[in-house]
């Protein structure tokens, strides 16, 4: 991303004092609305039990599985998403706008719809179920299934981030490389991709975080079994059925990971984008 420096002299004080009191009050409620659940998780957690919950087999197994699943999902998203971003950014074809809308759809689709859609497509009796059966590939009830479910819901994040990066590249750079006789593949590898590394990283991290948090699609498509498909959100849900206080620690774990992702990777990016 080209960082366009905005003037640092925001007349903040001036405009701030003109914000009507009513807006300030509602804004305060808005801030509280967002923060309250997070504060409550910390405040309500039974801290003396922290160690026993966080080191329990359920939590540890789910954490390990979540890291594997989210990382695999992010890799799948990159492998499939970067080429899609290329096509959307560089190629003109009829129905392109529809294609882009469809690719972004998983982002706004209810996860449970993603889950049942994946079952209808890749389940034992799904559209491709017969083919997968012959190949002896089974996705529901397997870790691979959890990866597919989470990769599906997080896919658009990679595509959108990388596409916006590709569009911001100065076409003269690639033109120059071509003029010097570089083949298309070489241009992509040596010029284009290095220029969009920040967007690829941002997209991958967002996809990773989205995959880490997925609940509905995973539960629906992959099921819930400790060690193979029970990721942290599923473990949280199961624990909350009988021990909601203890489940707060798993929630806290997810909050901390999310906050870390925001702080470390998206620092500049989101905060500067006004």
């Amino acid at each position, binding site marked *: 991303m080209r960082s366009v420096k905005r003037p640092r002299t925001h007349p903040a004080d001036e405009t701030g004092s003109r914000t009507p009191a009513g807006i300030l009050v509602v804004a305060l409620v808005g801030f509280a609305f967002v923060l309250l659940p*997070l504060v409550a998780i910390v405040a309500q957690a039974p801290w003396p039990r922290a160690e026993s919950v966080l080191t329990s087999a359920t939590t540890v197994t789910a954490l390990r599985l979540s890291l594997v699943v989210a990382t695999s999902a992010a890799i799948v998203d990159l492998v499939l998403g970067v080429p899609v971003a290329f096509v959307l950014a560089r190629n003109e074809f009829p129905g392109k706008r529809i294609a882009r809308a469809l690719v*972004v759809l998983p*982002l*706004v689709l209810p996860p449970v719809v993603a889950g049942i859609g994946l*079952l209808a497509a890749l*389940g*034992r*009796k799904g559209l491709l179920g017969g083919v997968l059966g012959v190949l002896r590939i089974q996705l*529901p*009830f397997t870790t691979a299934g959890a990866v597919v479910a989470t990769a599906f819901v997080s896919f*658009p*994040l990679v595509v*959108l*981030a990388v*596409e*916006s990066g590709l*569009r*911001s590249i100065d076409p003269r750079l690639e033109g120059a490389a071509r003029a010097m006789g570089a083949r298309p593949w070489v241009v992509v590898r040596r010029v284009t991709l290095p220029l969009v590394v920040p967007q690829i990283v*941002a997209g991958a991290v*967002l996809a990773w*975080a*989205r995959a880490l*948090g*997925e*609940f509905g699609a995973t*539960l629906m498509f992959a*099921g*819930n*079994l*400790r060690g*193979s*498909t*029970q990721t942290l*959100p599923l473990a*949280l*849900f*199961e624990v*909350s*059925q*009988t*021990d*909601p206080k203890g489940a707060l620690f798993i929630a806290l774990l997810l*909050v901390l990971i*999310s906050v870390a*992702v*925001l702080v470390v990777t*998206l620092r500049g990016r*989101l905060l500067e*984008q006004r």
Partner: protein
Amino acid sequence: MKGGTTRRVGTVALSIAVASLIAGVSCSSTATSGSGGSPSTAASTHLTVLAASSLTQAFGQIAKDFDEAHPSATITFSFGPSDGLATQIQNGVPADVYASASETWMDAVQKDPGVSGRTDFARNRLVIITPKDDPAGIGSIQDLGKPDVKLVLAAKDVPAGTYAREALANAGIGTQAEANVVSNEEDDQAVVQKVLLGEADAGIVYVTDLTPDVESQVRAVEIPKSVNVIATYPIAVVSGSEQPALAQDFADYVTGEAGQQTLHRFGFLPAS
């Protein structure tokens, strides 16, 4: 201009993504049974009934009948796993009536926050279901211990899951069957769904889950009486109910003749 639009879409999408990082989790199904076509009755009273998900169909019918006798009452159901519902009640979810698929979880609610008028109102038993084409060749409960059977049960604290594990242990295949479990589902209805979809080779549910619609799409394998587990369903008014009288009316209706007939029609056994 076009590039600008794209970038804006990107920014919006990223914002959405960040919002979804802190995604919520909610899974209980809620259904409101209104009385006919008068949504804004002046003096309508609201009754919240938390009931085991295995009661979904039967209580839906009972609510309709109850509504006719009490036109001013509106019943809101929250169907879910009995353990989850008990936890919700203990954490202050408004509840007037609790109907559990197990005595264990009613005991928990009776201890905290307390109940009144607790009565057993029905019993239920377990049955094995498989997809119509029976891919794993399940002829008896023993077959659930065979290698490579994809078995789906309700989670172990959910009554349907607790009972299923008891029955498997009674049949002497507890360990082998547990090793075959590919998913611990939220409740019996979720087990039915996994078998209906054909993803699971077998599941253990209540006989009452075999509604005509379900029965036509699955194959049922009976579990012999000697190893089967009988579930007892208690109902009670939850302490702190704002409508204790109406709540008790509903509980009485369920335990009364009309309610019992409906439960019988949906396959439940009488309480005693």
